[in-house]
């Protein structure tokens, strides 16, 4: 998984199933209220979780994507949600203090949801996710097949960049010109990447079985014990959630 960082932290050491449950709890938090002040506390929690997983660096790396998303969602909701007294009229569109606050809330909500997700992915290997799913009752084979798409992403990305390089070596420049020109230039890229993906998945199913995939005797190598750390993390998360629910505006 391209976000995963091989480090040691509180979150890295948690039981993957506990982390999955924790993620669900964390996702609930920003959904409890639409008050911008309350949602700032969600964002604060997301930052705290990031610090626990030593993945604030990844948060920072995502800013190119998160900041525009935040601004876009604030603007969209502020402009299109028709509530309260208009403060400002822009032709058919209007902004009221209510819609502005709602826009802010939505921006905060989406950002904190994404950050919780980033924290999870930065601290959990795909193999651990599969193991976590298995521990909460998802059959290994199903979890594994689900994980394959994610496992293969970096390989596809690496192959994609090899293919781009091969074409650049033949004078093709996919990164110049306007958006339309770029789109047209992407065409010769699509075929080899798709062909590669098809070949790879085909060969992979064979390679997996040749190494015993599907055997009923399987014993997982990655095993986890539900420990104090996990109990603590889940306990605190649940408490925060219940308190937030009671105190939410």
């Amino acid at each position, binding site marked *: 998984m391209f976000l995963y960082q091989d480090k040691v932290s509180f979150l890295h050491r948690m039981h993957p199933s506990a982390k999955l449950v924790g993620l669900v709890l964390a996702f609930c938090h920003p959904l409890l209220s639409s008050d911008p002040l309350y949602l700032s506390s969600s964002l604060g929690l997301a930052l705290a979780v990031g610090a626990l997983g030593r993945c604030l660096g990844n948060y920072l790396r995502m800013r190119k994507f998160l900041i525009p998303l935040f601004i876009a969602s604030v603007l969209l909701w502020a402009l299109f949600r028709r509530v309260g007294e208009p403060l400002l009229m822009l032709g058919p569109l209007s902004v009221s203090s209510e819609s502005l606050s709602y826009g802010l809330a939505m921006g905060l909500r989406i950002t904190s949801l994404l950050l919780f997700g980033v924290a999870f992915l930065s601290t959990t290997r795909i193999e651990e996710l599969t193991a976590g799913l298995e521990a909460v009752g998802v059959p290994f084979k199903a979890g594994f097949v689900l994980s394959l798409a994610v496992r293969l992403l970096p390989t596809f990305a690496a192959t994609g960049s090899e293919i781009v390089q091969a074409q650049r070596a*033949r004078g093709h420049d996919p990164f110049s010109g306007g958006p339309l020109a770029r789109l047209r230039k992407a065409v010769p890229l699509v075929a080899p990447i798709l062909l590669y993906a098809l070949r790879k998945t085909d060969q992979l199913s064979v390679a997996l079985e040749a190494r015993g995939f599907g055997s009923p005797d399987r014993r997982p190598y990655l095993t986890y014990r539900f420990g104090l750390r996990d109990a603590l993390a889940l306990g605190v998360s649940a408490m925060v959630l219940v308190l937030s629910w009671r105190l939410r505006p």
Partner: protein
Amino acid sequence: MKAVHLKGVSFTYRGSGVPALRCLEYAQEVGEFAVLGGRSGAGKSTLCKAIMGIVPTLQRGEMEGEVRVLGRKIEGLRPFQVSRWAGLVFQDFEAQLFSTSVELEVAFGPENLGLSRGEVERRIRESLRAVGLEGFERREPWTLSGGEKQRLAIASVLAMGPPVLVLDEPTTDIDPLGREEIHRVVKELKSKGHTVLLVEHEVGEVEDADSLVLMSEGKVVWKGKMGKADSELLASCGVRPPEPWALAFHLGVPPLGPEGMASEIERVLGGRLEEVRRRWRETVDEGATPGDVVLEVRDVEYSYPSSQAQALKGVSLEVGEGEFMAVLGPNGSGKSTLAKIMAGLLSPSSGSVLLRGRPVRPGKVGYVFQNPDQQLFAPTVWEEVAFGPRNMGVRGGELEDSVEEALEAVGLSGYKDRDPFSLSRGERQRLAVASVLACSPEVLILDEPTTGLDYEEQRRMMEFLREWNLKGRTVVLITHSMWVAAKYARRCALLLDGRIVADGPTREIFSREDLLSLAHLKPPFVTQVGARLGMPFLSLDEALEALRN
């Protein structure tokens, strides 16, 4: 009971008109170490897959006959059931990696065998050590160099410890000493009672195997003791005769090691040695001195974004007009990285690359990737070759001409309308070269252009490059094949751990065995023998020519 037994096996892949196996008979004893050779397309990989039950269960087609492994009939079993007794290292090693760390990749097989955690840990440790990947446990497989990936693929099957181990060309991308190491590991397994079937083009590298098997057109045409096959038989199956055998055969002496062979030759020649040496010195042609510098690499350093370690640690290099140069070095030493930087495809972290004094831009230096399949995408051979010149603004009659010329050069003129993916591996490789040639590059860089090709295809590729070079063009070649470098390159640079440790005329570099072994390399047998006689030959032909009478 036989370890592997195929009786009258025929197999035709679905959608293909030609059978891959034709009424094949093959038997291998328990504990026997057999080496399998043959042309590309002879059916070697299909035989391997039939042993695992992959054909016809996962790759479908028409199957006849019976396959038994350790006495059990494979028919009707799933490959995962067969994997308890037999393991297969696939030829395409990239395709068998799917985990997010080296450790978990190796753990996957043993997990499926239901082994305890402690046992799995032990096997991970041992098999990574066997292939020389200690310390790589936490690396992500996709960030490994080509040879490192292949080593990992081997380790992931070794860890399962299958009683019958099948390896399909497992060392194509591994450096020479690494290959020896893998072959040693395989022999060790044999001595512990495992049965090994190894597909290998360079049969001379596994001389101490129990038996040699030769395949041709879907059949096993010969099986016998290693060393009983003569050069003619090998050549008729498209296998390069090992140099010690060929030399011994032509000189009429028993096959010996380099020391023994040299003293034998000395004994036979007696007083004439000095004369032979003098005549040899007159005939050796060290090649024209290179012209002006075309490509200059100055103090280049490079680190990949995903890692702290530097792949190149200050490399400087000048390539002269008309040179034929080889870059050699162990796996992970930075050869491919250097080549991509020279072609302007990666920008160095510091330092610069100049093409005729100006910063290099992609498209000016031709670069042929190791895997032709990542380079080909067009619907026809013609379109494939036309892609490059078109990008450079060539149109109309001029385009026709440059495509024509490039196809002619690699001997693919009659293939214009074929689908690139319907060509054989060797033809695809030549097409990849043609598609780069059509851009009229100033320098041509090739990353391991002979891997995955059989002997005849390798020779064809190299003869073509030699001809092209003789017209005054510049070639830079990356290779792990020592005979290829010795025979064709005029100059060699040794890369070790991101630095150039030696650079000079091929003959000079290849007569320094200590230096080469530092870089995990080993000169060809004839060079070793020749060096002991004061005549470091660079090819078998040269040796035979000098020692003819």
